[in-house]
């Protein structure tokens, strides 16, 4: 049974919520339309399809699009060696989806990191607090509207931050310009 067949079984069980499996560079991905069902999809994948290993949970900030957050789950079955990617989307007003901690305990720290960096909350998580930044840090650093240099904060006794000297911002090329003048590395100011 290949990963495509596993994806089709998920599609069979959950119907319209799950897209048809797409392939890119040998990897199979499915999209889940309703983020609330992620717990059911993941526990089905683990118990019925043998995906007992959660490799990674990532989050992507699709700045300017609605829904803004994409949360990507990488599943793997050690027994059959298949890999599957399940991605789901969450809108910015909601910024919440169920935690899969009860399916794989490794999701604990991954979800804490996503909360810390992007600000997406996970309902049902036993201990959702910041993991890489300190408690009380007011921003979510990996969002696209947060500058790389950072913003000044001060939490006396715990930590302070100052903006890093980037002289106007990182000079980065922008993809998709018509000609090389558009694509030239320029200052990319954050969108605030």
């Amino acid at each position, binding site marked *: 049974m290949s990963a495509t067949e596993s994806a089709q079984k998920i599609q069979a069980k959950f119907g319209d919520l799950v897209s048809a499996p797409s392939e890119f*560079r040998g990897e199979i991905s499915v999209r889940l339309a309703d983020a609330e069902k992620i717990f059911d999809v993941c526990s089905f994948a683990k118990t019925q399809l043998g995906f007992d290993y959660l490799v990674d949970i*990532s989050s992507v900030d699709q700045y300017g699009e609605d829904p803004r957050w994409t949360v990507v789950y990488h599943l793997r079955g*050690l027994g059959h060696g298949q*890999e599957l990617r399940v991605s789901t989307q969450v809108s910015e007003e909601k910024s919440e989806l169920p935690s899969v901690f009860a399916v794989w305990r490794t999701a604990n*720290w991954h979800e804490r990191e996503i909360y810390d960096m992007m600000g997406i909350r996970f309902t049902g998580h036993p201990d959702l607090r910041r993991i890489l930044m300190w408690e009380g840090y007011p921003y979510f650093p*990996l969002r696209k509207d947060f500058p*790389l240099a950072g913003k000044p904060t001060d939490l006396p006794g715990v930590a302070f931050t100052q903006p890093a000297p980037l002289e106007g911002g*990182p000079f*980065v*090329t922008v993809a998709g310009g018509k000609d090389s003048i558009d694509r030239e590395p320029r200052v990319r100011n954050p969108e605030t």
Partner: protein
Amino acid sequence: MAHVQDIEIRDSAARTALAADELQDAQGEKMVLNMGPSHPATHGVLRIVLELDGEVITKADPDIGYLHRGDEKIAENMTYTQFIPYTDRLDYLAPLASNVAYALAVEKLLGIHDKLPPRCQYIRVMCCELARISAHLLGLGAFAMDTGAVTVFLLTFTEREKIYDLAEAASGARLTTSYTRIGGLARDVPPTWCDQVRKFLQEFEVSLAESETLLTRNRIWVDRLRDLGVISKEMAIDYALSGPNLRGSGVEYDLRKAQPYLCYKDLQFDVPVGSVGDCYDRYLVRMEEMRQSMRILYQCLEKIPGGGANAAKEPVCIPDGKITLPSKLKVLSSMEELIHQFMLVTEGVNCPPGEIYFGHENPKGELGFYIHSKGGGTPYRMKIRAPSFVNLSILGELLPGCMISDVPVVLGSLDFVMGESDR
């Protein structure tokens, strides 16, 4: 007349348990001990908040993030080639392996990771295995030093200096090599490099045997490590451990065998697997992995295309001007190469839109890169799946029940590195 009284000394675990029982009614308070970020035995800046009942740990809460440098946000603002030095500093004990992992991830996005020139593949495999030996040696040395066996630390560091010499000959730097490029390597190895590797392996065999006689059958070492920090198979899979931590618990899963990349298909090697899942098993798995790495290196030295000195001038980079920098002579004389050079340096390697995940068997575990690209030379989002980050999450379940003096042993056997864990 003198009164003789017999003193009965039971073993320490029984005594602790008895004391805990007796004290339960006497004082109901537990002590909170902060094993702070600056600590000799926490292998980097890790803070563990321990709740103690006497000497026994009842709760452990690891606090990480003291080395969080914002690598993922930096990656969104750099071209793919500009990010290579940051990958050195992820797992700074084995920078060559992290370089290879990142290069393979971007090459998978481009679709060329199985089309690399064979000499490049063999050199990358040799670099990975040298990095594996180097990382295991330091993990072992620091582990032994924390438990008191300081001689092993000095022995392993002497061997690591030889690996540093090899890395310096190949890439120019001892520690932060930045050796791979997208589509190949920065430069070919010098002509005498393979002979130096062979010489190193002969000396390393002797030194490894010496470290083994000092530790493996050492009564104190075995007593301290046996039956401590037992991770069962189910727990290891549930917590998504990888590398020697997973294999020490009996799960035979190695990415070099399960999803072969580079030229590992053509090489013969075994994957050591533990049985019990305690600290001693993980230590034995790491020692045997070093031996298997030596075996791989000998095979590579035999099979490398072009031989040691590359008299046949085999390429080490994909000869595609849109991916690899052209040679400088051509750049300064020919228009097409000049344009390629300009595009590659200012805009970076133009990758197609899409998302990939690539997992690589690093010494610490599975280092994975999830790259979400919207086209162009910079990634839209790069997530680094760090093995140490995932391995550390098990501490909250592993430490309760141990005593304080067991904490350095458990931490050393998990062999994590904070640069990777916090990114």
